[in-house]
């Protein structure tokens, strides 16, 4: 597992797994879209709009997952002096921002027919919006510092401070009365979703994850190269 903390090892492994990951993501996307459009049933209440879930839920999960991994890498980078954590933070923040944006946009497209409004100010929606703004602040911080050493450490500290928001996003549906529904799958008891809908959801989640990993590999490799040539 040394490639997770060592840039040169990461480069070696990344060359091997980049193409398989990309091909796997294409296959999974084709399979997942096939499942979610043709092989899964309509909801008895929501009709065909339930298919927005297959984009909305995976992107939301991955937005949270990306931030959580960034938090872990920040701790590793600050506490154990692993510079790969800084590279990871710089490279991956825009990917998380895009996942959050996809989640927000697909959610509001789903909310218009179901709730009758594009946006409500309940706890889940607001905390996800704050997550998006935190991602944007990380990106802007990465752009606006001149000194690289200061920049990467300050961004890591900011990520740690901002990780307060993660449990708020996860548990907002339990702590407050929200219009957004509580968790159906990621809870301790049995998931309250039918297997015919769970299958495309899982496939789409892995497809999103694979495409995210593929883009992340590209961005991390670029970041390593630009660091070696002292461009930033």
């Amino acid at each position, binding site marked *: 597992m040394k490639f997770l903390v060592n840039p040169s090892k990461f480069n070696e492994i990344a060359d091997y797994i980049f193409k398989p990951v990309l091909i796997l993501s294409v296959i999974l996307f084709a399979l997942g879209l096939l499942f979610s459009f043709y092989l899964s049933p309509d909801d008895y209440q929501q009709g065909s709009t339930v298919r927005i879930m297959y984009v909305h839920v995976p992107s939301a999960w991955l937005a949270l997952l990306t931030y959580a991994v960034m938090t872990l890498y920040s701790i590793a980078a600050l506490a154990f002096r692993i510079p790969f954590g800084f590279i990871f933070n710089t490279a991956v923040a825009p990917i998380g921002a895009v996942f959050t944006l996809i989640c927000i946009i697909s959610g509001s497209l789903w909310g218009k027919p179901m709730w009758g409004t594009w946006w409500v100010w309940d706890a889940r929606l607001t905390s996800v919006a704050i997550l998006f703004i935190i991602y944007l602040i990380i990106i802007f911080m990465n752009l606006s510092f001149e*000194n690289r050493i200061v920049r990467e450490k*300050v961004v890591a500290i900011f990520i740690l*401070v901002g990780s307060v928001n993660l449990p708020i996003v996860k548990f907002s549906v339990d702590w407050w009365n929200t219009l957004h529904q509580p968790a159906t799958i990621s809870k301790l008891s049995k998931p309250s979703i039918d297997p015919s809908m769970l299958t495309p959801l899982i496939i789409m989640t892995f497809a999103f994850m694979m495409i995210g990993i593929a883009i992340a590999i590209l961005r991390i490799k670029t970041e390593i190269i630009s660091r070696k040539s002292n461009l930033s």
Partner: protein
Amino acid sequence: MKFLNKIIFFFYREYKLNLSGFQDILTNIIFFFVSILIFIFSIGPDEEVISLIGVGIVWALLLLSSTLSLKKFYQDDFENGNLLIIHLNGFSFGFIAILKTISHFLFVQIPFLLSIPIACIILNISDDKFFYLLTSFSMGSLTLSCLGSISSSMNLMNHRNYLLGSVIVMIFSVPIIIFSIGIINIEQNFNSLINILFGILLIVFAINPWASGLCLKLSLENN
């Protein structure tokens, strides 16, 4: 005893500095009142509407105007080298952050605390709501000072994008504003919400010396 003397001298120095730059603090307060005026003009002088949303306006504008002076939090001391001299006198960076936060609370937030009664008179806010506003702001302003310390120490080396500091403070002050407005609007919940506010204050006060001390150290090392 010597250490205590140093702390007293630190606050004496801060007092002198703030006294010579008193027009800055006054400008903040004038900004606060002028923005209340702008709000009144944009809503219209309907007394019922104003007394309904007045508390929210006051809180939001207090937040906005206390983020205005954030640029001066560490920047002057950082640029003329006083921060390093204070550190060489035996204060750790975390302790400097605590002292600076308290001095920011005393010299920048207390004038706002004094100007709240006037704002409440202008906006027709009732007496009990005024008491809740004062309680929640006296607790929230210290939290805002801590957040200001964190964000301004992060942006010491940031020469391109100064507004980022204010955005960081505003993002993290969302829970404070939610629970403070909750105190004022749901009055039977007073004790529980004041406990939550106090909890947030303690958390931020604990994070503050760690985060700002690390950022100050980084900026001084790489200046």
